[in-house]
């Protein structure tokens, strides 16, 4: 691993809480690592577990999924489904040999700009420790 290695993190944020939370962090001038690539989805329950797999395949070193706190979902129960599915995915990934530090899930509400900062710092820190993801990344073959 080179010293100037910067991890690539893909973050799926729910429109109603986490995206607004990240927005609040921005308007509050909170500093957090710039390794995060945010993808806004309408609900964390909309995140197909295969998105996580696909992100890792296409070059991400870590994936973060963030939604509303349980009970606060804009769609009542979307994040409960997400919790169940992504929890299973985490177990499966770990069993297959993907470092558990590469996948995180969090609950960040629209008023938790500072929590968002902590979550991002933790995610980036973990991905940095785990190093570049070499596992089943799609390799470009030059013919």
């Amino acid at each position, binding site marked *: 691993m080179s010293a100037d290695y910067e991890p690539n993190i893909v973050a799926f944020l729910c429109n109603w809480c986490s995206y607004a939370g990240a927005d609040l962090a921005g308007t509050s001038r909170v500093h957090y690592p710039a390794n995060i690539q945010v993808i806004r989805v309408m609900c964390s329950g909309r995140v197909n577990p*295969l998105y996580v797999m696909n992100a890792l395949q296409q070059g991400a070193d870590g994936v973060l999924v963030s939604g509303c706190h349980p009970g606060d979902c804009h769609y009542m129960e979307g994040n409960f489904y997400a*919790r169940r599915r992504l*929890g299973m995915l985490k*177990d*499966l990934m770990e*069993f*297959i*040999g993907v470092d558990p530090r590469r996948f995180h899930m*969090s609950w960040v509400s629209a008023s938790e700009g500072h929590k968002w900062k902590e979550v991002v710092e933790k995610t980036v820190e973990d991905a940095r420790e785990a190093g570049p993801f070499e596992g089943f990344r799609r390799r470009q073959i030059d013919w």
Partner: protein
Amino acid sequence: MDLEQLRKTAAEIVDRDDVKYLIGWKQGSFGYRVAPSFVEDAAGAAELIFSPLCTANLATYLTLVEKLPVPRGQEADDRKVALMVKGCDSRAVVQLLVEKGIHRDQVIVVGCPCPGMVDPALLAENYPETEEPAELKWNGDGFLLIRGGEEIKVARDELLAEKCRLCRYPNPVISDISLGEAVEPWEPVEDSGVIEIEGKDIDGRSDYWEEQFAKCVRCYSCRNVCPLCYCQDCILDRLNPTWVNRAVNFSENTAFHIARAFHLAGRCIECGECERVCPANIPLGRLNRKLAREVRDKYGFEPGVDPEAEPFQASFKPDDPEDFIL
């Protein structure tokens, strides 16, 4: 089980007007082969068998059957299908009912209590296959192999399939007609395959699966044989969006196996068919059993037991574990 009773019952079932056919097992063309049989008349019923070689899970055929559009002026054939099931197969039927893949009144479940099946690969390895059809029977606490005129007694532990060693439901969970007497469930052994992988560290696991997945030729037999992989439009076949590329390399193979295992999380009934049909001998059962165990231990859910249950991934409990959340 008494074969006479089985054949008589089967003949009675296919004789009914509201039954299309009965799916059972019959002697295959050679050696230890056992073939699925679609019985429509009494002659077919006389060929049915139930032996330790009937490993195939016939519940697959309930959803594999092609439903062609009905021509104008004709009525759809909505007669029932009768199906012979072992303990594990009956769980597949229950899971199909839970997911509304089939309707309860379209299927007649003929339950066959199962004292344990043999592993066909293990059998062919220890006792080479013959051209003549051979027979295998349950014999007290073991098996009796009848091959080329000689009778060989085989200990149960020598040939018992792995899925049967781990089996907790030898008796059908649901049945309309029960054949034979219920067997006493045995103590399942420790799942050594899963424990072996869990004992490795992350790199060890990743090396292990890299070696296994690199063997995959992407024939999709595991998907096709699975009684619970019955989507008309499978994501693995889709080109837009392309979830999994068709290239056969380690990256895409892993993606395929993650997708396959994940789609069976909380649904797999551990019939071991994927493992049996795999031409590359990838231990797919370990993936499935690991997830099944997580679902059982963490979420207290067991698929294919209660026909009234909610599907695992389409339901939730407010107190699901969330120790992994930051």
